[in-house]
């Protein structure tokens, strides 16, 4: 491996070169550029061992407004090169830079090696991760030229069209538009072309877009919201979103106080997704097998071997309404997930039967004799029906129409009993018609109870679940395609004065 040093005329000449990130026309890095950067970094390494390189590039345009005035209009881009040097019998060290010239990259490699030398923690090479099975790399198109090519002017025009009607009616609006594109790649000098480790990510590029808007009455007497996220800006009908938020605000003004209690509820898709987030976070096989969570059978059903309980799970048992099927399909672009190795289609609930729980590859090897992890309910599709929200309303004697929830907290991990608030529009439905807006209510209910009390289901649609970064899977928002639904006996426990 050749080592390049900085001395003499060549080094001075290189120093004189201007440091630039990317040309205007190249806002993100191509695969060829990422490969070249990785190879240059590998060549700078001294002392043998392994060099892991993570290269990311992104461009993000944002527009934010409040009280009908734009407060932020940005168009940013950056690159990030993270270099991890693992030197045998010495240690490991990491350095990060966003400069792509030779001098900066070599300085970052040296910095990582200095940190490795002082770390006093010899790092054992991580075991190789077997190559992903043939064809396991989903080829979903989560790239949209429309999203990538958006400009500040585009976003300004959209915002103007959203703000003007609101202002004309004397309301305040606040909103956020974002168009985001990027690339990711993570490779190792010992596995530059595979087989990949758990840490490696072959080059991938992606786009994300979102638009959301809140409209409020100037006196604070009403509030409406609408939002949608997608990889493809074309699929977000901003005019419809704006009209919807405005309409909800107008209709929610001067709400009446309603006594808390059990009500039939019509949950719009956004509200369903927010409730289902609780279920999504609970789908864990190892937790279930430790005797905790909603997916473990009662202690009496545990098998005892040598004094140790073998907790049985509810896999294969019907646990929710048999009209509900929830699955994950990495190739469905509406979910907007970036392809990763070992992603597969998973069905979590099939006609109400629990079919799959999330587990790690470590667990798969130890307990199932398999060589792949099973992903959790991150990015999912929920089945629905054919009933429209209007039909749900027309068939309701007395109930509540819920736009969405907020501030949901789980109170009991075993039953998933949770509490949260309604917001941005809550209406009383009586004798098949919306009769009045009502003040927000706090609910105390389990989503599992709701999923077993369903009366009607509508057509599933994508909802507002923006993914902040392609690889931030731990974020609390789960991309989802869910239906509106009507459920009985939903428990509201107190009135909330906040609008």
């Amino acid at each position: 491996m050749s080592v390049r040093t900085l001395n003499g005329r060549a080094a001075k000449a290189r120093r004189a070169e201007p440091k630039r990130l990317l040309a205007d026309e190249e806002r993100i890095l191509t695969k060829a550029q990422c490969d070249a950067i990785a190879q240059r970094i590998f060549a700078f390494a001294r002392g043998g061992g392994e060099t892991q390189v993570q290269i990311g590039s992104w461009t993000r345009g944002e527009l934010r407004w409040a009280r009908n005035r734009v407060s932020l209009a940005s168009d940013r881009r950056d690159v990030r090169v993270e270099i991890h040097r693992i030197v045998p019998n010495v240690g490991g060290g990491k350095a990060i830079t966003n400069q792509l010239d030779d001098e900066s990259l070599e300085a970052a490699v040296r910095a990582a090696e200095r940190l490795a030398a002082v770390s006093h923690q010899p790092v054992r090479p991580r075991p190789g991760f077997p190559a992903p099975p043939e064809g396991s790399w989903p080829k979903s198109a989560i790239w949209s030229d429309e999203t990538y090519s958006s400009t500040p002017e585009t976003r300004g025009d959209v915002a103007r069209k959203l703000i003007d009607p609101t202002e004309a009616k004397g309301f305040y609006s606040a909103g956020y538009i974002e168009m985001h594109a990027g690339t990711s790649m993570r490779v190792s000098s010992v596995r530059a072309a595979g087989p990949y480790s758990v840490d490696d990510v072959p080059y991938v590029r992606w786009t994300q877009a979102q638009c959301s808007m809140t409209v409020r009455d100037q006196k604070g007497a009403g509030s409406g919201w609408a939002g949608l996220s997608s990889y493809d800006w074309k699929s977000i009908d901003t005019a419809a979103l704006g009209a919807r938020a405005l309409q909800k605000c107008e209709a929610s003004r001067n709400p009446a106080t309603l006594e808390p209690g059990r009500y039939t509820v019509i949950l719009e898709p956004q509200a369903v997704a927010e409730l289902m987030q609780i279920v999504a976070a609970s789908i864990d096989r190892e937790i279930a097998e430790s005797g905790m969570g909603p997916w473990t059978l009662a202690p009496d059903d545990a098998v005892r071997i040598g004094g140790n309980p073998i907790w049985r799970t509810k896999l294969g048992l019907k646990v929710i309404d048999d009209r509900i099927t929830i699955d994950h399909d990495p190739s469905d672009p509406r979910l907007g997930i970036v392809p990763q190795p070992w992603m597969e289609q998973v069905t979590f609930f099939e006609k109400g039967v629990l079919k799959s729980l999330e587990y790690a590859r470590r667990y798969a090897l130890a307990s199932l004799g398999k060589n792949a992890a099973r992903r959790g309910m991150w990015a999912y599709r929920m089945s629905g029906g054919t009933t429209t929200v209007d039909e749900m309303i027309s068939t309701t004697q007395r109930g509540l129409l819920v736009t969405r929830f907020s501030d949901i907290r789980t109170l009991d991990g075993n039953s998933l009993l949770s509490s949260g608030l309604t917001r941005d529009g809550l209406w009383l439905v009586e004798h098949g018609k919306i009769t009045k807006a009502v003040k927000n209510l706090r609910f105390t209910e389990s989503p599992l109870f709701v999923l077993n009390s369903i009366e009607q289901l509508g057509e599933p649609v994508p909802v507002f679940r923006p993914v902040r970064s392609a690889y931030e899977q731990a974020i609390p928002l789960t991309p989802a395609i869910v239906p509106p639904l009507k459920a009985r006996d939903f428990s509201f426990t107190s009135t909330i004065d906040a609008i």
Partner: protein
Amino acid sequence: MPTLHREHFGHVPHRFACRASRWGGAALALVLATSAAAQTRFTWPDTIVDVAKYATVDQCLAATQRVQEGQAALHSMVVWRDTMPVDVQETLKPLAAPVTKTAVSCAAQFDERTAKLSDFAPLMTLYLVANRDADAKALLERRLADITSRSTHERVAVEDSAVLIYLHAQPKRLDPAEQLLVARARSGGDRLDRLALYGRLMDAARDAGDTTRARRAALWIVAVGDSLTQAERESDKYTKLGPLGGDLMIFGAVQQIVGVKTLVDSLRRGTMAMVNLERTMWLHYTKQRPESFPLPIGEHAPPVAGDIWYPREAAGERHPAPGHVSVVEFVDGSALGTCLGIGSWGVITDACAYPFSSLRRLSDRVPGLDVTFVVGTRGNFLHAKPPSPAEEAELYRNWIEPFRIKGAVLSVTTRDFWNLPAPDGRRIDKLTPNSIGYSFGKSWAIEGNSFGGKYLIDQDGIIVDVIFNEQATNEFVDALVQRQKAGGDRAAK
């Protein structure tokens, strides 16, 4: 000033110097003098941390913790602790001087008479680090006096916090912790509550090597335990007392009172004499049936089976070896991946080395000690390729052999498993024959559990002790060796 002028001149930008040459020397001098007068020499900002300037208790506590972590890191670089016996009285030693100095300096601004009571817990902790015990006590009294509610919950919560702070301090403040616990025990609560309080005190004192205090608490436990009704003994609260339940708490207290020396005296007469003493104590103080005695002492240790042995010739021998004092240890295979870095993310060397280091000390001191390590294969280690039983056995050998424990052999048994029916399909490991043999029909888990799994066996193959404590084990082993020697001497005469 002249020096300053020269320095500035030396740094005048080229563009500026050219202009100066055109306008003439007088103008240049004027400009430079004005420029120099307007500037000051660069001085490094004051980057020395002055903890006395920290404004809040949290900041002070964080500062002392940073210094403490730094001291610990420094200590770990010069002292390799993993092969040294545990010094139980280490928790009673004072903190390093830099830590105390930081706390003293930072805490000086907080007066216990005027400090915010919402800062009670962190400030009390800080006072103890600064060795301001009297102020910590005064603060606690202020906090307790501030409780106006008739409910005892808040008082109990504050007292519990204070006890924890006293017990977690370095050095442990056992005196004030005991005063609080005893005062609470005497002020009310039922007998089971008192047992729980005394149990906490006994455990804390024993962990700190304060045998006098531990014995005192043990006496209280036995006294209260003796007064329990049958209904209290059968209550859910009793079974959840302490980490192991009420019976074992009382039995532990009895053992604390009797002491290892008494047991060793009994052991010198014969293993069964000591076993009978322990069984009698169990029956008398817990009032349980004889078969509920939880320890396997007095049982005949079955011969260890194995598919693969290291060294190979051990396959034809009987272990534990008749006529030898023996140790049989079931190795927790779940630690192997971590200890050898197989398919794991990190290597925890100290935790891996300590159990073997204590056995090495014992085998060095006692020639002829027969040590048998017992392993049931696991079949997988995180991300590594699943090894065959022979490969896994080799891994265990590689792990244990470097500890150079004299007289040690390794038995590896292939573990069978079954799978739960679909859709679960989970692998359920079966117990190995060794695990079944050494459980003696009791319900505790031999493998992967610190309770059970290490047995001290006498020359006749009778289990003397389940090893928990290196010091007690040493005394038991010495007694067994002396007994054998005395028997040999008598036979020779």
